[in-house]
């Protein structure tokens, strides 16, 4: 099983801070696609992704037990 964490406005769109999904074997890009369909996110291409608190790129493969966090860069200052 994998835990997926949502930060900032992604949390509001998903309606939850975290969810559990079986996504091992998928790439980060594939997971983004799946999440977009499931929760109706409009765009995730510029959202940063961490696996087990380490920055990862879109082609990294998710392993069993990994925790994946989606962190959208924000702009205000």
């Amino acid at each position: 099983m994998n835990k997926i964490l949502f930060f900032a406005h992604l949390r509001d769109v998903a309606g939850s801070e975290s969810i559990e999904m079986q996504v091992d074997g998928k790439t980060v890009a594939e997971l983004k696609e799946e999440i977009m369909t499931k929760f109706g996110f409009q765009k995730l291409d510029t959202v940063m992704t961490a696996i087990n608190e380490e920055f990862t790129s879109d082609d990294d493969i998710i392993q069993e037990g990994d925790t994946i966090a989606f962190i959208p860069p924000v702009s205000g200052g």
Partner: protein
Amino acid sequence: MQDRYSRQELFPPIGKEGQAKIRAKHVLLIGAGALGSGNAEVLTRAGVGKLTIIDRDYVEASNLQRQQLYTEEDVIEKLPKAAAAFKRLRAIDSSVDIRPIIGDANVEMLEELINEIDLIIDATDNFETRMMINDLSQKYKIPWIYGACVGSFGMSFTIIPGKTPCLNCLLQSIPIQGMTCDTGGIIGPTVQMVIAHQSAEALKILVEDWEAVRASFVSFDVWRNQYNSMKMSRAKKQHCLSCGEQPTYPYLELENQTKTTVLCGRDTVQIRPPKQQNLVLSELAEQLKRLGYEVKGNPYLLSVEWPENRIVIFQDGRALIHGTKDLTQAKTIYQKILG
């Protein structure tokens, strides 16, 4: 004033030696909004040698809730933020050389200043300027500290050329339709927490305590009680155009910057983003309506009634700002909405 910095000098990682280093340094602060006000105050009180502050905006009533340097009087006088900041900071510590610049931070302006700068602090509200700062930082080997916030969510990352990944490694392209304080709201504590992270990093860099500099990318939500520290050891991209083996510094090129044009005889400025966008207009309309703005639209464009201006935003990211001929003001409004 004697003893002025004594408590900071008693802090072992700084000491008298560190204080002398802080005094010898010149910090460039880009933006004098919420993050800019707070960072400027911390650095001025800490006795930095020189502080150059660039801002293109003036003080408005909606700033006072979180922009700690400004007062009601500044709002009434419509003082430019850089001028109002200068007034307040000089009253705090007259021995610090504060250099306010009222204007739009562009490549030309920054390249003129940059040779004497030791550190850049990001207090901007848009990614276009941040990507430009990022390229300048790499080109001239000057560290910079990214900070941003919206709602109760904030983040910061310290970029040291030759050592850490850069912002271009992390984002690869400019996120547009990023949430801004004018669309997603903002609370004071979020601002303060980002300022605390940025200014602590600034002090470490100014005293040259490189080992203490935080290597991770922090993000937090002060309302939902989340704190995330992301390790960045695998984030550096070998072929990054800003910090890779053959850098081209793409964001210093004119073609990658937002174009502003006054439309003759129409009291209107046209804004064109560097790359054609594919905006989700319905989502943007909802955000703006929630904030109480009057928004009308069709599948091709949105028309927003902004105080004193009407703004028309097209799906490709182009916008018309009606009711002004001032390019900087128009760009400010555009970036307040689209980040």
